[in-house]
């Protein structure tokens, strides 16, 4: 039987097992929406802005191991989606975005709602396609899902002109896909695995530095086993949190700009560094020259060859799927006569313990005013450390990363690479839909939340009982912190004036609003909120305006040149 391009598009999504499509209709996707309407296998979540559609699909993907799907119309639909696409691209999130395009005969004529979608999105997608023949739709969508999920994952966009979605052809979904120019690495050669193990076993001051690649590859089990067997300290990047259990005694905390003292010092002064699915970015190693002043051997496992030796020269590259490579390393270690020598690294552990004694995450609590760190600690307790936490971007994001101890992967959902304010709420919607019976909280600030606050309406429509933990300091806190440190206390445009009454706003959207102003009310309020299992609760925590995030490694500085709270 012949189907229209639109019907084929939906059939493809069904074949791929897509549960949800996050989207917003418009002229160029009307046929596709019509095809969605006549089936109920793929459920559509109507957002209130296309940016949120992509973030929601992103949150869905990050919290599962599935590909997120978003559907937007041409022109402004696509341009609104670009922030979401770039967010997913920077964090390597598997996603397929289907966009409508003006009819093929109108392309290039500056038609209504026409933009060069493939051109605009090219630098922020893993790949994109413009479908010019209805017969190509099925094959293209098959390729899109395959590309999105395989190798180093990423968003893939399929642009479908309106006339193509209305033409008819026979439908058959390809069972396999072969792209002759695309062969993502799987296994690495055993020689390198052996060399890596030798280096690791000979280390006196070893460090394991694991990033988001561990989560994307579902390799936290293998990582944890390896770290335990070796007895080495392990740190996670912001993207890697939960990849190694944060409550484990070998965990030294997050590293980087706001990482713990022990993690950053360990990173700086180790003699053998095993980097797993991480990319030595500027927020992690700070000043590369400073980092290179200390001599160390670096082993780097990554699926993407271009991540290796990009910023920091690596001695032993291992290109491959992180889970496979760690599996190979484990097998080699199990089969090896040589075992890790705990005596040899005992002095190193003693040094790390000394660094730990700095207690770099300590903060001065108060009975008068709510400290933001305290809210996160209580959130951790009330949710038994088992919630899915999404965040926006800024100080609250760093506090959530520092004080919520993630023991499981895919529970910490934040925009690490692009640093997109407005990510948290829509991402939480995707997470809640993927995990309807789990606790999902969005840690946010009064700045970030207002960038996608319209999604409170989506949450009402789809009855998503999120808990919004807003740390309200009436400032764009991270901007204010930098202005305080580096711009002579000149707080240019970082004060958030004329804030709405968030309690009333939440109520206006049909949710529960709470304002919490006293430290003693924090825990009871959180408990009450999480007991309201069927309702979205918007919690406006009025926090200390002057609190800063510590430790801090300033941009351009080295990892050991850290500022601690006690230094100021």
């Amino acid at each position, binding site marked *: 039987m012949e189907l229209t391009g639109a019907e084929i598009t939906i059939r493809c999504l069904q074949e791929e097992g897509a549960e949800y499509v996050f989207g917003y209709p418009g002229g160029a996707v009307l046929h596709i929406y019509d095809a969605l309407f006549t089936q109920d296998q793929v459920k559509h979540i109507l957002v209130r802005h296309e940016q949120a559609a992509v973030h929601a699909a992103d949150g869905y993907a990050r919290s599962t191991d599935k590909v997120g799907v978003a559907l937007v119309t041409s022109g402004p639909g696509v341009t609104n989606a670009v922030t979401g696409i770039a967010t997913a691209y920077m964090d390597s999130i598997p996603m397929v975005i289907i966009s409508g395009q003006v009819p093929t005969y109108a392309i290039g004529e500056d038609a209504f709602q026409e933009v060069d979608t493939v051109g605009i999105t*090219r*630098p922020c997608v893993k790949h994109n396609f*413009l479908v010019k023949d209805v017969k190509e739709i099925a094959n293209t969508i098959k390729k899109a899902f395959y590309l999105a999920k395989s190798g180093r994952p990423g968003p893939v966009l399929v642009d479908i002109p309106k006339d193509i979605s209305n033409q008819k052809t026979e439908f058959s979904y390809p069972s396999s896909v072969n792209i002759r*120019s695309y062969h993502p690495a799987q296994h690495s050669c055993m020689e390198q695995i052996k060399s890596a193990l030798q280096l690791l076993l000979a280390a006196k001051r070893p460090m394991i530095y694991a990033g988001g690649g561990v989560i994307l590859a579902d390799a936290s089990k293998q990582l944890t086993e390896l770290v335990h067997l070796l007895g080495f300290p392990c740190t996670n990047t912001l993207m890697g949190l939960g990849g190694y259990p944060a409550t484990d005694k070998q965990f030294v905390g997050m590293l980087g700009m706001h990482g713990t003292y022990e993690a950053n010092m360990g990173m700086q002064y180790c003699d053998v560094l095993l980097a797993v699915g991480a990319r030595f970015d500027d927020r992690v190693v700070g000043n590369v020259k400073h980092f290179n002043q200390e001599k160390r051997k670096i082993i780097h496992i990554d699926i*993407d*060859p*271009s991540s290796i*030796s990009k910023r920091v020269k690596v001695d032993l590259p291992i290109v491959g799927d992180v889970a496979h490579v760690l599996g190979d390393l484990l097998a080699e270690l199990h089969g090896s006569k040589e075992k890790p020598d705990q005596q040899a690294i005992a002095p190193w552990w003693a040094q790390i313990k000394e660094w730990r004694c700095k207690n770099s995450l300590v903060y001065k609590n108060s009975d008068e005013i709510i400290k933001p760190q305290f809210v996160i600690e209580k959130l951790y307790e009330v949710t038994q450390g088992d919630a899915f936490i999404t965040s926006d971007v800024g100080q609250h994001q760093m506090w959530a990363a520092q004080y919520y101890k993630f023991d499981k992967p895919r529970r910490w959902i934040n925009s690490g690479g692009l640093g997109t304010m407005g990510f948290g709420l829509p991402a939480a919607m995707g997470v809640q839909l993927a995990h309807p019976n789990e606790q999902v909280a969005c840690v946010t600030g009064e700045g970030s939340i207002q960038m996608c606050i319209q999604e409170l309406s989506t949450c009402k429509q789809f009855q998503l009982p999120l808990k919004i933990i807003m740390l309200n300091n009436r400032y764009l806190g991270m901007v204010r912190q930098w202005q305080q440190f580096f711009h002579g206390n000149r707080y240019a445009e970082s004060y958030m004036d004329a804030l709405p009454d968030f309690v009333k706003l939440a109520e206006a959207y049909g949710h529960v609003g709470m304002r919490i102003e006293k430290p003693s009310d924090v825990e009871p309020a959180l408990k009450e909120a999480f007991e309201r299992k069927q309702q979205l609760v918007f919690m406006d925590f009025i926090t200390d305006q002057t609190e800063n995030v510590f430790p801090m490694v300033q941009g351009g500085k080295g990892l050991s040149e850290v500022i601690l709270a006690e230094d100021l």
Partner: protein
Amino acid sequence: MRHIISLLMENEAGALSRVSGLFSARGYNIESLTVSPTEDATLSRMTIVTSGSDEVIEQIYKQLNKLIEVVAVMDLSEGEHLERELMLVKVRAVGAVREEMKRMTDIFRGCIIDVSDKTYTIELTGTGHKLESFLQAIDRNLILETVRTGASGIGRGDRILKF
């Protein structure tokens, strides 16, 4: 250092912009870029002349390989290779200059492919260095316009870039 990179990619709309976009987005230099279909109509071959430190060239190589439509990449300058560029030069050629221009063209093994009462159009092939030498050897004031293709490169002997 100057590098000459050859690549094979799917002969599809937009493929060129993926490569040029990559270079501009990541701040890599392009001295020249040539592209044309190959004997296999599904593939295009591109020659890119670029420059940068070893680290930058390594990244360029890896980033090109990462593009989904790129089938194969080779840094020709890592081994023995040949490099040719085509140049067309239109010169003012009147009076005694006509003979002189003809002579210079012969010396550089070029040929005159278009003649008018006042002009010659000279076709010249060679390395970029040779083309520049020719331009320096003739009277600059006589040059009306030049057009160059940019370098095309190929490995020597058994060095073959093939899918």
